[in-house]
């Protein structure tokens, strides 16, 4: 198929960027979206032009490196899908496709389609852990039974890949879905309850410091999340935050 790509090109963080047209031909429906960009880059390379830089690594939807705002949607038109798992069969011959970086104050552009998501790391560093030493000298793994329902729900939250689609989808560039997923994972487990209050306070504080916006319950994050993290996690985080604030 033939496509007209409009891709954001930006030399570095300081230079102003712009959309550039790249017509492309010979795209097969079985190609992934990133393989389509590989084809474009090989063409640019052959012409002696600089390829389009974009983040990607595992290409199986789990590492969270790939991003891209495709036709205005994080990870493109498909649901529960990362850009690397999006296939060209979702597009038609003659389509125009806008490809931009994830946009948020807390995700500054590094180059072209690559953004800096280290703000996510700093939120995790503020409290996204259980403070046990890694000696292995803990209690036996089966010493504390955990209801399957809670373990499963904890796991659902733990599947967050930290891609930032929730932020890119949100008109406020809020990171509440991301932050609440980690808080929920631990809040649902007895091991995580011990530091629950301190954790939620520290992580929310860092989230605000990074310049992410507030949640106004539009639910766009839930729709775009490639791992299907539920809006209920934000509600749980709010409850945790309220009870931490009143306890303190």
């Amino acid at each position, binding site marked *: 198929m033939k496509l007209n790509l409009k891709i954001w090109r930006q030399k570095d963080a300081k230079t102003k960027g712009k959309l550039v047209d790249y017509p492309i031909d010979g795209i*097969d429906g079985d190609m992934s979206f990133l393989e389509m960009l*590989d084809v474009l880059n090989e063409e640019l390379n052959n012409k002696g032009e600089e*390829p389009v830089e974009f983040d990607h690594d595992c290409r199986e939807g789990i590492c969270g490196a790939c991003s891209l705002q495709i036709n205005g949607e994080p990870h493109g038109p498909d649901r529960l899908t990362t850009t690397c798992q999006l296939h060209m069969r979702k597009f038609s011959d003659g389509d125009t496709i806008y490809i931009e970086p994830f946009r948020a104050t807390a995700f500054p552009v590094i*180059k072209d389609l690559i953004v800096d998501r280290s703000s996510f*790391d700093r939120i995790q560093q503020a409290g996204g852990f259980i403070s046990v030493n*890694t000696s292995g000298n*803990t209690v036996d793994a089966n010493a504390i*039974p955990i209801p399957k329902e809670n373990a499963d729900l904890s*796991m659902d939250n733990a599947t967050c890949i930290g891609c930032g689609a929730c932020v890119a989808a949100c008109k406020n560039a809020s990171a509440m879905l991301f932050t609440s997923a980690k808080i929920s994972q631990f809040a649902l487990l007895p091991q995580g309850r011990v530091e629950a209050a301190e954790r939620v306070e520290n992580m929310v504080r860092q989230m605000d410091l990074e310049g992410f916006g507030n949640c106004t319950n539009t639910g766009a994050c839930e729709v775009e999340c490639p791992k299907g993290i539920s809006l209920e996690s934000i509600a749980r985080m709010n409850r945790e935050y309220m009870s931490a604030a009143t306890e303190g």
Partner: protein
Amino acid sequence: MGILDSKIPSGPLADKWTQYKNDINLVNPANKRKIDIIVVGTGLAGGSAAATFAELGYNVKTFCYQDSPRRAHSIAAQGGINAAKNYQGDGDSNYRLFYDTVKGGDYRSREANVYRLAEVSGNIIDQCVAQGVPFAREYGGLLDNRSFGGVLVSRTFYAKGQTGQQLLLGAYAAMNRQINRGKIKAYNRHEMLDLVLVDGKARGIIARNLVTGEIERHSAHAVVLASGGYGNVFFLSTNAMGSNVMAAWRAHRRGAFFANPCYTQIHPTCIPVSGDHQSKLTLMSESLRNDGRIWVPKRMEDAKAIREGKMKPTQLSEEERDYYLERRYPAFGNLVPRDVASRAAKERCDAGFGVNKTGQAVFLDFKSAIERYGKEQAKIHGFSNPSKEKITELGEGIVEAKYGNLFQMYEKIVDENPYVTPMMIYPAVHYTMGGLWVDYNLQTTIPGCYAAGEANFSDHGANRLGASALMQGLADGYFILPYTIGDYLSHDIRTGPIPTDSAEFDSVEKDVRDRIERLMSGKGKHSVDHYHKKLGHIMWDKCGMSRNAKGLKEAIKEISELRSDFWENVRIPGTADGLNQELEKAGRVADFLELGELFAKDALTRNESCGGHFREEYQTEEGEALRDDKNFKFVSAWEYKGEPKDSVLHKESLVYENIELKTRSYK
């Protein structure tokens, strides 16, 4: 013994590690604060090691090429992690895990290392649960297990099809706790380009900041390489796009011996190649073989009709299907080890029974499992006389709960519903058992330079069993390196900080800068990918699932020529003083072009078949691997001497005192 001293402690197998820990030197907490450690790679091995070193009090610097440690490729491991907990009461024990691993590795791994791995396996699970890793549980609230290939017990712990992700996020969280305390400084989007030795000891690295292009010097008292495997030498593999051998290869060039490069794991259940545009291959977890049955049509004409789209696999009755693993290996059936399953698939496809357009695929079918689970659920939920549809619906529910994300991934890529039509799968390069040679301390032949996880060679012999990579990565990082490195560093308490303005750092930095300049000044005929794909073709055709002397000799010659062509004609657009992904790729492919040749040379030297290394000249009448214990019961450790063709082979002879060497049989 030669110049390779494995430093295996004396005493009975089961007491070696305990005795070792009692005998080593310790560093007191105040002195640990004066000692720096560099960890390259932040996957399961590197992440867990870095967190533990920092927790003990050392100053740690971590390096990863990704934008966050959380994205290391350990994250993509799906099926599970083994541990000899015997929660199922099915006869498991440390000895049995040890035995299965040595046998699974086709008797080419070190007894003492493997036993230690089995010994600490239980602790890993305790540790991860304490860290909040949400493993799958039974309704009673206790941990669930499943089975993996090559064993007769259920010892695999899992978190849906995302076990690697959960364990990595656990290690990442442990790292974050130490970053928050200021004990780890994380250098993300940084790539190690070389190792610096001072007085023969590893004392630092030269790294490139991948955003600014700056070349940086970092010093430490010890350097841990946990930079993963080299499967991407095949271009197409299940590895991440960025996975590379650079850190290990640079260390090799500085004196670390490289062991068993030809031991590669070709994983049997991956999504088949669909076209020339393909950039990587996707694994479908081995756990699927718990419930999926592998087959091809019995009749060649049926296979042909399916290939041409004239027939659907569901039209074939049970009698018309050849469940070839169940037929050939009745004892282990669909759960034979990976190397055996892969070769069996290749054998059927080569014989003309392949089922996709290219003839390079077999079926993985869940029909029986859906029916079995459906009937069980109907009984549990009290449906009397359930309809066939109800049974299917209930059964699909269970299969979805167990493997839902894998089924979804398959559907996204192939555009077919695997609940209805059987999956098509084919073997693909997945893991490399070879790696830097290490002794019992996980130290390479360079003092102070350690290798952990997939980057070392030590535990899996010639074939790794499923769910053992996660176990080894975390064992090395959480429980082994923290002891062994302490013993080494106890001699460094008076050393003080290592300066980076020395002649040694000057010289290595110059080498790095020269190399980048040379890459940037290629004549510009072809892209990096052009060379990488060519290398991949040579490797897959001549060093893949089966090898022979003629092909290997050709491969050596072709790779060597391709390497010269690359250095003369590669084209890298842009500049080196900023973010440049083509330059990053070029450095990695340059190393693969050396490693690939050594790989072929190693395979040519090993005149036997064992595990993942199958030499066509050495097989039984039934087509099974034919080992030669008399002549090849050793680890091949290669010393760098300039060009791969000049590399010198050193042998570490393997001694089996606790296991009787047998022909591996899964019949």
